[in-house]
């Protein structure tokens, strides 16, 4: 404890440092070997020249990347107005699902039905049904906007997932916490609001972050009902240049957001696991 691991002193530290060097060396060599094989062998494939021109075209990439980045702003905007509404609706559903008051049974049943339906459907199907179905009623502008109804579809589906995650958090709060709060004379709703929910929501932050990362990716599905967001824009460029490189650009832009976010969620989850053990 406290000693600098790069200056091993004890026998065990010297041994472990040697083991670590060995493991790093083997890992580095095998990774380099695999990379070399890919770099050397893939260009030998008969179609490589064509693939390189169509998917890895530097010129097309440079021409389309700024436009893609610009289109991605729409993805972010859709995400930003959906996310808070999902959080609010998800929380309301989670609470409604746990209602025990007999008079509120219809609300509870509605929440159960809602969650079952929207968790049980492919996102794209909900987007089609709502995004084409509701404007099909012949509503006047702006009520026929695909942005509106496409976003609603995402909100409904993701709220159902968030509700289930929050509910699992509520169930993970130990009964002794409820008992302690009840024994102080707090009402059932105060116990929920001040003791159970704050702990439950903290616990499910990483799980919900993963859901919101998935949401950011699924925003691209709205392109099927109209909005020219990044995926649709990449398609436009593809047709224009007869080249698939714009899709690669779009993929890189998604990864630039999702990989750091996923790593951060993992980090939060690890920290919680450590804190609880």
């Amino acid at each position, binding site marked *: 404890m406290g000693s600098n691991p790069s200056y091993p002193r004890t026998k065990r530290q010297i041994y472990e440092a040697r083991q670590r060097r060995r493991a790093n060396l083997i890992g580095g060599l095998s990774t380099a070997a695999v990379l070399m094989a890919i770099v050397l062998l893939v260009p030998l494939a008969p179609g490589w020249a064509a693939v390189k021109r169509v998917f890895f075209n530097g010129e097309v990439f440079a021409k389309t990347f700024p436009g893609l980045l610009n289109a991605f702003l729409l993805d972010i905007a859709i995400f930003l107005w959906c996310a808070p509404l999902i959080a609010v609706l998800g929380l309301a559903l989670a609470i409604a699902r746990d209602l025990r008051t007999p008079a509120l049974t219809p609300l509870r049943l509605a929440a159960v039905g809602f969650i079952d339906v929207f968790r049980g459907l492919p996102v794209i199907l909900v987007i089609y049904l709502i995004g084409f179905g509701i404007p099909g009623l012949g509503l006047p502008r702006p009520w026929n906007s695909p942005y509106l109804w496409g976003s609603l579809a995402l909100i409904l589906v993701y709220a159902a997932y968030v509700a289930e995650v929050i509910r699992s958090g509520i169930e993970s709060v130990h009964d*002794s*916490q409820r*008992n*302690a*709060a*009840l*024994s*102080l*004379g*707090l*009402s059932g709703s*105060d116990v929920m609001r*001040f*003791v159970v929910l*704050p*702990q439950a929501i*903290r616990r499910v932050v990483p799980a919900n972050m993963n859901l919101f990362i998935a949401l950011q990716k699924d925003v691209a599905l709205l392109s099927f009902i109209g909005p020219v967001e990044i995926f649709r824009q990449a398609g436009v460029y593809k047709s224009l240049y007869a080249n698939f490189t714009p899709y690669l650009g779009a993929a890189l832009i998604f990864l630039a957001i999702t990989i750091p976010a996923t790593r951060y969620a993992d980090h939060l989850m690890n920290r919680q696991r450590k804190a609880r053990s």
Partner: protein
Amino acid sequence: MTLVLENVQKAFGDVPVLRGIDLTIVPGQMICLIGASGSGKSTLLRCMNLLEPIDDGRILLDGVEISEPGHDPQPVRQRIGMVFQSYNLFPHMTAVENVMLAPRRVHGQSRAALRPRVEPLFARFGLADRMEHYPDQLSGGQQQRVAIIRALAMRPEIMLFDEITSALDPELVGEVLDVLRHLRGEGMTMVLATHEMGFARELADTVCFLDQGRILEAGPPSQIFETPQEARTRAFLSRVL
């Protein structure tokens, strides 16, 4: 304030836990419940605080049958404080927020109005410099003292203590027992489930020996500890003393 238990019975599924408990608690009294694990001490306390509904019998608070099915437990619990073996502080709140939550919500008092009232409680139990700490920054003994303050802040007329020193490291037991001694000195009405025989002997008015869901023997500590009448009481005491 008088709490009367008449023939209280409770089973978990097919397993009877309380098999006809009669007990009267009068103001200022301190009752210690002793007995082996599973003898029903904890369940009895939880029934008194209406955390567990009883199957048969009655619990009367000042003559009102609080155990009646459908009786609102909330006002009862506001008069009967409880402290648990595992502290059960709310981990997302500081010590002082733990203490102020119930008075704020139940009595509608503001933080500003409450602080001057709860600060002396923290000071009295040696926790003046721990008010803004979170539970995970406190030792077990400190957490348990905060839990006691939290219950006291509701100004209960009777306090139930469920083996509150059992989860503590031995060197921390003393500081919690000191708090109980203090409350005893102030005349607080208390019922304790405890394994601290020396403490029960020193301070209790009445010691009840529970065995398989019954109060097998009850009396002043001198009688229970020195001249127990029942063979089972003697057997239990010889194991723990």
